[in-house]
């Protein structure tokens, strides 16, 4: 074995260096994936399943409503919906320790916030640009934050959040708080150079971070195969000795099962993990994208055969829940979303003086 032969020539690594994957010559890159394939789905109780169902439904109904408000002109500019991808945020974030672990993502951020329990009213009011919005209407759909939930945003620049995530992980480690960072990005973002700078640093310094590539098949109008040389995104950490996992992002229990394995690895101080979550967005890239680069049939096929909410619904029915039980949840969720929408329409716009607040600290 070439690697073993080579390793005998190397001097014994120093103590500090042993902290890092880069020096661990027995490192097995695919062990997490093997474990994931062995354990598969998370063994959720019915209660947990109902909770996942409710959260996914909240995201879907919220996004449908946001789409409607956009159509009515109440939401302007750029608005990226998460419909189809609900199982990713819900499955992963349900395994986080609230108030300890940090989350950061790109501009398709409504779902991640809702999965974290952030008030739908404050999110919707941000979309409509109102003072009561979570960023006082100045950030909009793509730029939302919550220190309470350690949600470090919503970022409009593709890929930039990945480096920031590396910094969050560095701070978790420095403070020895036991938390880690969950850093989401897209298949398109995975081609930004700074992602790989961050991979290297995260592995070199053994940072507590889980990189999550939400592979929904498209970066705007560019299908994965037209923009990426390596389309098996979970392999992209290999050069940096970051173990990868290939996960079905349309099945919330499988997502949660994978999260258990990945998060344990990171919490045990073994360094970063790269998860590829295979998913699909049903709507256009943003509200202004008619999505002509793919066929209707392709979308229809995913909706009919892989939908994360329908999939869980089937399981719940098998477990003895009735259609009526699930309808009651839907009704409750619709009321929450309607309330958020009403709030977002009726609350006032920020005062013009708000333009000059929070540019720099203090007087400006």
């Amino acid at each position: 074995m070439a690697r073993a032969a080579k390793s005998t020539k190397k001097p014994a690594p120093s103590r500090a260096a042993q902290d890092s994957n880069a020096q661990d010559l027995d490192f097995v890159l695919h062990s997490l994936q093997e474990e994931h394939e062995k354990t598969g789905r998370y063994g959720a109780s019915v209660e947990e399943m109902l909770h996942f169902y409710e959260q996914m439904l909240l995201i879907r109904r919220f996004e449908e409503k946001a789409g409607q408000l956009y159509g009515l002109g109440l939401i302007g500019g750029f608005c990226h919906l998460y419909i189809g991808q609900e199982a990713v945020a819900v499955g992963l974030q349900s395994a986080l320790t609230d108030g300890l672990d940090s989350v950061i993502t790109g501009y398709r951020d409504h779902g991640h916030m809702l999965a974290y329990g952030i008030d739908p009213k404050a999110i919707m009011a941000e979309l409509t640009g109102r003072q009561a919005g979570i960023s006082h209407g100045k950030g909009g759909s793509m730029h939302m934050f919550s220190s309470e939930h350690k949600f470090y945003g919503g970022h409009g620049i593709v890929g930039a959040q990945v480096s920031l995530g590396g910094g969050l992980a560095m701070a978790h480690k420095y403070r020895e708080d036991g938390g880690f960072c969950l850093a989401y990005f897209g298949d398109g973002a995975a081609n930004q150079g700074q992602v790989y700078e961050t991979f290297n640093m995260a592995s070199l310094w053994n940072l507590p971070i889980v990189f999550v590539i939400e592979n929904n098949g498209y970066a705007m109008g560019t299908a994965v195969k037209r923009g990426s040389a390596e389309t098996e995104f979970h392999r992209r950490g290999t050069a940096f000795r970051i173990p990868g996992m290939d996960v079905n992002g349309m099945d919330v229990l499988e997502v949660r099962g994978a999260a258990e394995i990945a998060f344990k690895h990171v919490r045990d101080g073994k360094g970063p993990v790269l998860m590829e979550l295979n998913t699909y967005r049903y709507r256009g890239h943003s509200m202004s994208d008619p999505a002509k680069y793919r066929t209707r049939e392709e979308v229809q096929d995913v909706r009919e055969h892989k939908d994360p909410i329908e999939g869980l619904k089937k399981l719940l029915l098998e477990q003895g829940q009735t259609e009526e039980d699930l309808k009651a949840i839907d009704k409750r969720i619709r009321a929450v979303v309607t309330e958020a929408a009403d709030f977002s329409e009726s609350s006032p716009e920020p005062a013009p003086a708000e333009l000059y607040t929070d540019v720099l600290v203090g007087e400006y």
Partner: protein
Amino acid sequence: MARMSADLTEDDIPVSQLEASSRRMNMIEAINDALDIMLSHDPSVIVMGEDVGYFGGVFRATAGLQAKYGKTRVFDTPISECGIIGAAVGMGAYGLRPVPEIQFADYIYPGIDQLISEAARLRYRSAGEFIAPLTVRSPFGGGIFGGQTHSQSPEAIFTHVAGLKTVIPATPRDAKGLLIAAIEDNDPVIFFEPKRIYNGPFSGYYDKPVEPWKNHPDSEVPEGYYRIPLGKARVARSGDAMTILTYGTMVHVAQAVCQAKGVDAEILDLRTLVPLDVEAVENSVQKTGKCLVVHEATRTSGFGAELAALVQERCFYHLEAPVERVTGFDTPYPHSLEWAYFPGPVRIGDAIDKLLEA
């Protein structure tokens, strides 16, 4: 098909083209036409960028070009601005003429090192042996509810860098002629397209219906090849009351304000910030004795500061009042309150009044 109107000088267009016919176009069509012509004229021209090939660009500026010229000459890139611009510099050094698109000016920053440290300096540090003849096209500016990552006007970052040219058209006719000139230019050109006026000359009166380009004389775009030289300003409106120095979307806003107020101002559409038509600026301000600078970009260290300094250096003894500036506020571009932020007719009107009273 109409004859092209005659205010392009013989300098601007080869004489053989002056008799050419013309066609109504919006700014997107004019840009597409320029790219089409350059791709067909010069095999070293390459069009590349995110979603530009198969999809035809998010604003459709490259629609149909991949089908016509093939994937070797018009192609999609990954989302890698640093890599895109860096590759374009290398391609340029090896004799190609790449025209990379950066989808929004707000995304040019990951590539800025390649623009400043490489593209702008290659000629100088190789004593002219190597050049970087790339043209970076990028939609810029606000007024489209884009918030902070789809609305910025970062032109002054580039005008501050020696070795780069910065071009900003304000009409379809100029967009085509300037883009052809930029692509043929042997230096790196940042070509910022005011996206608010892609489909019509926005007046700044945001509550009025949008005018399409077809009602505007400068949508009459000559067919075929022509170039508008870099470094020549255009008189968008001639007048005596004051000089308004501006570019891009704000040319049309300033025009609308002058019309609404009945002010006889001279509006100079700068067209290219670097190289700047200093002579045109000087002549106009010396004639009118008053100067207002208007741009969307933030105020501090904006291009208006450079213009104001130039005007006082060159026209001080002709000035009857201090130079006025109407600009974006020194804040990030907000999601909400866009029309409070946008330096629209009210703020321009106030500045005009102040100068008239001076």
